């Protein structure tokens, strides 16, 4: 197991290095000068030159890369061009904000979707199955920004149950913080539940067709015992992998949801940085997202044998 972990970490290092170089090159290929953007149409050649010098953009690309790469190896991801803040603490701050919303939403979605998918599979081609699959398809098809706005208008504006804008951190006021994240969590929960129900149903259907399930039924076991004691562990594996992918994907940024609900999270930071051509922040965010993706999927792979002992760490 330890060998497996070290091997995966060792594989992640070149991945992240390649990612670092690729990100650096690619974002500089995008047209747009961050200094010109900061100065707008009021830029004069002199003010532009001053700003290029201050931001280090007057140096050649290899020099810029060398400086950034060298600093990165020391854990320094540079300083934001727009806000002048160090990038790593900024990314971490925003990440925790996004992570809370994502983790709660994915946990709730998993808790609801896995049993719902299994029930749909158990009741295949009945009204229950049709209802669950139909609901899942509908939820998955609705764009998150539209779903978010609908919740905002209904729960926030019409019913006045929840605040429409703003954000409060848990450390400041846990009660108020909870209120402010209900709608963003609901948006993600509903959308991801749609995805997970379908996967859970599909993998359960496959397992329910296997001989050992027939054997278990022939032994006289109740349907709930067949489902939860025998089918669940084998059926959950693929869904668990999908949960890992969904988690990694969402932790990388839920910019749309953060924009609609005014949450100062990682996704919004990345999108704002792209629009502002804030190279250090873009590089820092993308590197961090890649790291999170690798880490989450490593954890998923390490926990997989718990559900399916046939699959070892190797």
């Amino acid at each position, binding site marked *: 197991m330890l060998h497996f972990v070290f091997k995966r970490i060792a594989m992640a290092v070149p991945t992240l290095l390649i990612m670092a170089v690729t990100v650096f090159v690619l974002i500089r290929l995008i047209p747009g000068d961050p200094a010109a953007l900061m*100065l707008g149409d009021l*830029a004069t050649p002199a003010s532009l030159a001053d700003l290029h010098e201050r931001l280090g953009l007057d140096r050649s690309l290899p020099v810029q890369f060398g400086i950034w790469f060298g600093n990165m190896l020391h854990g320094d991801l540079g300083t934001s061009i727009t806000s002048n803040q160090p990038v790593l603490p900024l990314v971490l701050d925003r990440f925790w904000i996004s992570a809370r919303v994502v983790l709660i939403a994915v946990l709730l979605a998993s808790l609801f979707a896995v049993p719902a998918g299994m029930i749909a599979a158990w009741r295949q081609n009945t009204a229950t199955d049709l209802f669950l699959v139909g609901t899942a398809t509908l939820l998955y098809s609705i764009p998150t920004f539209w779903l978010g706005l609908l919740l905002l208008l209904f729960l926030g504006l019409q019913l006045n*149950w929840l605040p429409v804008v703003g954000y409060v951190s848990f450390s400041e006021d846990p*009660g*108020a913080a909870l209120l402010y994240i209900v709608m963003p969590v609901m948006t993600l929960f509903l959308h991801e539940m749609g995805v997970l129900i379908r996967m859970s149903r599909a993998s359960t259907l496959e397992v329910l067709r296997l001989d050992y399930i027939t054997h278990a039924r022939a032994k006289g076991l109740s349907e709930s015992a067949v489902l939860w004691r025998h089918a669940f562990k084998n059926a959950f594996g693929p869904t668990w992998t999908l949960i890992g992918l969904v988690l990694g994907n969402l932790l990388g940024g839920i910019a749309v949801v953060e924009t609609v609900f*005014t949450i100062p999270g990682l996704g*919004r930071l990345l999108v704002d940085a792209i629009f502002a*051509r804030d190279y250090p922040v873009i590089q820092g965010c993308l590197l961090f997202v890649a790291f999170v993706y690798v880490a989450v999927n490593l954890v998923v792979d390490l926990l997989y044998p718990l559900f399916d002992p046939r699959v070892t760490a190797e």
Partner: protein
Amino acid sequence: MTRFLAALLGTALAAGAATASAQSITVALNADIRSTNPGVNRDDNTDAVVLHMVEGLVGYRANGSVAPLLAESVERSDDGKTYSFRLRQGVTFHNGAPLTSADVLWSWNRYMDPKTDWRCRSDFDGRNGLKVEKVEAPDDRTVTMTLDHASALFLDALARTDCGGTAILHKDSLKPDGSWDKPVGTGPFRFGEWRRGEYVTVARFDGYQSPPGDKPDGMVGAKRTALASVKFLVVPDASTAKAALASGAVDVAQVLETDVPELNKTRTVEAGFYPSTTKHTFLFQTRDPLLGNVKLRQAIAASLDIPQLVAAVTNGEGKPNNSGVPVTSAYYDAVQAKGYTYDPAKAKALLKEAGYKGEPIKIIANKRVHVPSFNAAVIAQAMMQAVGINAQIEVLEWVTQLDRYNTGNYQMMSFSYSGRLDPALSYEQFSGPKDSQPRKIWDDPAVQDLITKVSTISDEAQRQAIFDELHKRQMEATPLIIFSNGQEAWAHTKRVQGADPWEGKARVWGARVVGN
């Protein structure tokens, strides 16, 4: 479930009530500010917030002229090179320290220090033509500034909002190591808290001394505030801002022009349009093989029904203006009001004269919110196609379009210039030598001479004559088509009055809460 939510809601409402008390309001910003350091790291949102806390020697009136702000009076020497600013008495900084000429000197020296990164340094150190040679403080209430040559735009440059109004700050704005801390200025509000990505709060400065006047006038006039505090809340999404206004979570916000009629139908919100000196334009690249032909440019101008275009992109609220002089300017006269005439027959005749054979003309536009770039391009395309011009639209992200603008790499562009209150600065925005500044639109040495002259002389009648001449030449040469000045749509809840924005920026020192 309902009881649980109600209990939680009660907590939130109680927390919210503290900020919604008597005279506190919430203003929506579509993006976080960049810093609290005036004129250093800024954008429009940053200027809007910071200018509630700091003031300079002079400021803009609503009509674009410059008036004393921290100065009580401004005198100019006969040769036009030396300005004497007499400071107002009784003005104090937020830390209680009285304003003296030493503070003005300190602030100026700090701005001119390259380490400060003041974005307007090059406008005063000679690199952009004007140099402040000497700044002195002969006594506690007097500051003199001596220029290398007379300039009609010196006070304008000091008043510019993107320069932070050349705000006069106290030394306590810096930390002991000399780095920026927070603005300790003389404005009606003092700095409260900045939660990055979330909000900025400012609180009333009880020791504030307002310039004379009975109502706000641009950045001057009466500035004493009735508000106890203001929260500038970051709300990036326009739909969310609209919902926030309707729910009362936000009191003031810029909105989409298409939302104004709907908001005015609600019981709790009022929305309207406010002018700005922003110029909405179609730019031509006069070095393009096709658009280098003045007849073709004139044909495009004749093909556009500008009043109809302006009405369409401003929901009927905008006024057509083809002049580089803003409609709100004192220099906007009958000559400036003469613009292009919609004449499709003339357009077709001009196309024939130009030898146009149907080659594609690409109009670059962007889809930023609050600018009519894309909508204007779509309407212009239809009007141009109606007379036989093969107009195509290329939509680019704003930063990419700005890059193309700066390098001159385009044929035609739907572009909005930020506001410049003095018409000379307005013409300077798009006129100049393309060889050294590819972003310039109108490259004509004779025009440059006129702009240099009008930037130097102060006599209003002479300046008017030059602006009139510039306008006539612009109509003839058609290096660009200015179609209107800005009409920004803003809304406020009915519990707040007097929160009229200025030049597209929130301005709330004149606001008061009239009900809950």
